């Protein structure tokens, strides 16, 4: 792959890479307008389409794109660049110094590793006294058939759980309707609390629903002297009749 001929399609430019560089160098195209990331993407895409990896092309591309980046940086940050400016000799000197430093550190690391190897038999106390390793638990000898039986019992389907104790048994509301109507046929009034005494909470609740049902149908009149006082239930017409009689009289 020839990097210089890499076809680019950028916002600011369309054509081969070397033409772009030429235009930038001739100041006919501002480097600040060039999207370097897009160039890199174009190159990487082209590179990915080929195998094996073209190392020469990579090297050439790196040099060219670095040059382009440098031009762009110079244009974008002219002030900062002056401070950072290094001549070729200074740059080479800095690079050499850095490489030397790293080589020394690598050598130092090697010596440290050798030293550590030489001190392998150095044991000392760090923090609390080392604990003796816990002995492994030894199981007694087991009969294979017993183990298989134990395993089989684990694999068996567990019995399904009974939820019977959670079930709520609701007596039908109609049962209490019939019962209350029967009472009112015999007596004019009765005490709700007395009637439901001894029943379960659920049954009492259903009985109360039945009472409300009767009140809704105006079959009964309800009276309660105070909150939580006993509820007095009476035949609706019985309750009304004296009122009419007294007032109309």
């Amino acid at each position: 792959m020839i990097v210089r001929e890499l076809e680019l399609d950028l916002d600011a430019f369309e054509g081969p890479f070397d033409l772009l560089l030429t235009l930038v160098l001739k100041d006919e195209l501002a480097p600040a307008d060039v999207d370097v990331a897009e160039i890199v993407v174009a190159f990487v895409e082209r590179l990915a389409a080929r195998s094996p990896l073209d190392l020469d092309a990579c090297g050439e591309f790196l040099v060219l794109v670095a040059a382009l980046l440098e031009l762009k940086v110079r244009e974008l940050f002219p002030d900062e660049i002056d401070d950072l400016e290094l001549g070729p000799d200074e740059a080479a000197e800095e690079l050499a110094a850095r490489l030397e430093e790293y080589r020394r550190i690598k050598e130092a690391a090697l010596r440290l590793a050798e030293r550590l190897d030489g001190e392998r038999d150095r044991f000392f106390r760090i923090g609390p006294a080392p604990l003796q390793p816990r002995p492994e638990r030894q199981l007694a000898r087991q009969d294979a058939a017993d183990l298989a039986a134990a395993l089989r019992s684990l694999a068996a389907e567990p019995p399904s759980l009974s939820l019977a104790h959670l079930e709520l048994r609701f007596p039908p509301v109609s049962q209490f309707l019939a019962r209350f109507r029967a009472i009112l046929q015999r007596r004019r009034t009765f005490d709700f609390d007395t009637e439901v005494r001894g029943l379960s909470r659920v049954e009492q609740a259903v009985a109360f629903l039945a009472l409300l049902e009767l009140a809704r149908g105006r079959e009964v009149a309800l009276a309660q002297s105070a909150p939580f006082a006993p509820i007095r239930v009476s035949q609706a017409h019985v309750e009304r009749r004296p009122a009419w009689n007294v007032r109309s009289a």
Partner: protein
Amino acid sequence: MERPLRLITANPLDRLARTLEALLVVASAPLTVDDLATAADDDAERVETALGLLAERFREGRSGIVLEFVAGGWAFRASREAADACGRLFERPVERGISQAAMETLAVVAYLGPCSRPEIARIRGVAADSVVAGLLERGLIAEAGREATGAVRYRTTPLFERVFGLESLSELPRLEDLGETEDIRARLEAVAAQRPA
């Protein structure tokens, strides 16, 4: 009849030596002469003399315990002939599996420390975050203040010196004496010469 090891005598220095022995047994890090003198409530010169006695008594080959000067202080360690047995009792997690990257980072911190992660990364050319975290966890390096930029700086710990058997960091060879670096410059100059003007 075989004579038992005579430690209990009327000599007052011997008495101080026994106290120092006790202090060194309970300590889990090396103790300086000052530490020992303060704890023993005695003067430093006598402590040094007593340490001399103890060092002779607990020298390699004479006892299962060896008294040594390491990491800037005095500490007991196991004798080398007992190393195999000690190794069966417990392993040394601090140095288990120290990678090449960790060793280089350790070298940077030991020689150039206190230094920050960006500094380590600059020298090694790769990010140092996970390696530094690993060394911190092993207790071989520790935080040592911050740079003006706010980056945390690191230094090696006494444990590092102890693990590597160093009396102090100054026992390490000088960085200037390490690595042949002449050829790097020669190669760079050769490359520069080839470059078209």
